[in-house]
């Protein structure tokens, strides 16, 4: 009898675990879909940029490969402006360098995960997946539960984002609204605004904007890198002036 009892307990426990993991999976899907709604305009703007010029396959492939809207937009805009290859790549990498800090903050949480999980999940780390992962980690639970949540959330996020950008690429050229052009700087503005909350951050953004404005005629898109350099230098200078 004890054996049967134990077997029953084991069955119940594994059934509960499977149910919990299914609930985590469902929560991950819902979280990703909710987050994706907020990214629809940005995805469509990037999609319109993707569909504006050729080669279409390479530009469509940039969505899952670069997997960062701002870096993808920068790379495509600089390519369209005839930017030199080193500057295009340098700017894309400068914008995506923040991923180092996102990944670093996830490293302790994923330390016990399999090598395969880390290799695959790494490809999906980006602002929303990182934010949702941190939010889920704060609620606790087993690693299996959090992994299930992350796998569902990141899959939906990557597939949904790629789908939305592709949709933008398909309908963008057909919907030729002049007002849509202003959406690109508006999207970039939203990404920059959080940096305006500190004096060094605001000074860096202002310096980058000024240099960027003055350097639009700089050869082969080098204005963006010059502006980024100026922004970092000014922010660091102001940082040293700010009393602690």
């Amino acid at each position, binding site marked *: 009898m004890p054996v049967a009892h134990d077997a029953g307990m084991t069955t119940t426990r594994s059934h509960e675990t499977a149910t919990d993991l299914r609930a985590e999976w469902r929560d991950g899907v819902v979280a990703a879909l909710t987050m994706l709604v*907020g990214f629809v*305009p*940005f995805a469509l703007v990037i999609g319109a940029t993707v569909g504006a010029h050729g*080669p279409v396959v*390479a530009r469509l*492939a*940039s969505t899952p*490969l*670069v*997997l960062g809207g*701002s870096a993808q*937009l920068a*790379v495509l*805009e600089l*390519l369209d402006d005839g930017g030199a*290859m080193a500057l295009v*790549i340098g700017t*894309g*990498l400068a*914008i*995506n*360098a923040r*991923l*180092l*800090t996102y*990944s*670093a903050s996830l490293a*302790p949480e*994923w330390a016990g995960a399999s090598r395969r999980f880390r*290799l695959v999940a*790494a*490809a999906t*780390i980006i602002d929303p997946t990182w934010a949702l992962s941190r939010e889920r980690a704060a609620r606790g639970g087993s690693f299996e539960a959090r992994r299930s949540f992350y796998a569902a959330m990141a899959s939906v996020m990557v597939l949904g984002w790629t789908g939305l950008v592709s949709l933008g690429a398909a309908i963008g050229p057909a919907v030729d609204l*002049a*007002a849509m052009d*202003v*959406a690109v700087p*508006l*999207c*970039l*503005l939203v*990404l*920059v605004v959080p*940096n305006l909350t500190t004096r*060094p951050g605001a000074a*860096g*953004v202002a310096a*980058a*904007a000024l*240099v*960027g*404005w003055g*350097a*639009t005629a700089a050869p082969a898109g080098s204005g963006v*890198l010059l*502006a*980024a350099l*100026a*922004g*970092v230098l000014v922010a660091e200078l102001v940082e040293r002036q700010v009393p602690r």
Partner: protein
Amino acid sequence: MNTWLAVLAVGLGSYTFRVVPLFVPWIASPPPRVERVVTRAGAASLAALAVASIRRQTAHADLPDTTAVVAALVVGLLVARRGARMPTVVLAGIATHIAVGLLAHGA
């Protein structure tokens, strides 16, 4: 060819940024200064791109169109500073662009 090269290089570099801290422990805790510079370099690049995009749009635009772009950005900035999310900012900016454009061309 150039597009493929740029996409693959940025894609590979971005994946390296993502994967290395998960396998190399000392990179998993970068000094605060490095973290700060990395964040600011990204923000500065985005600010420069926004400005370049605005400059491109207004370079050959007439006064009403330039006014509409500037008004859209001012409204977008104000709405974003109030903590609104991207869809709200974009919709507010585009609505302002259309409204000011119509008014300025009608005047």
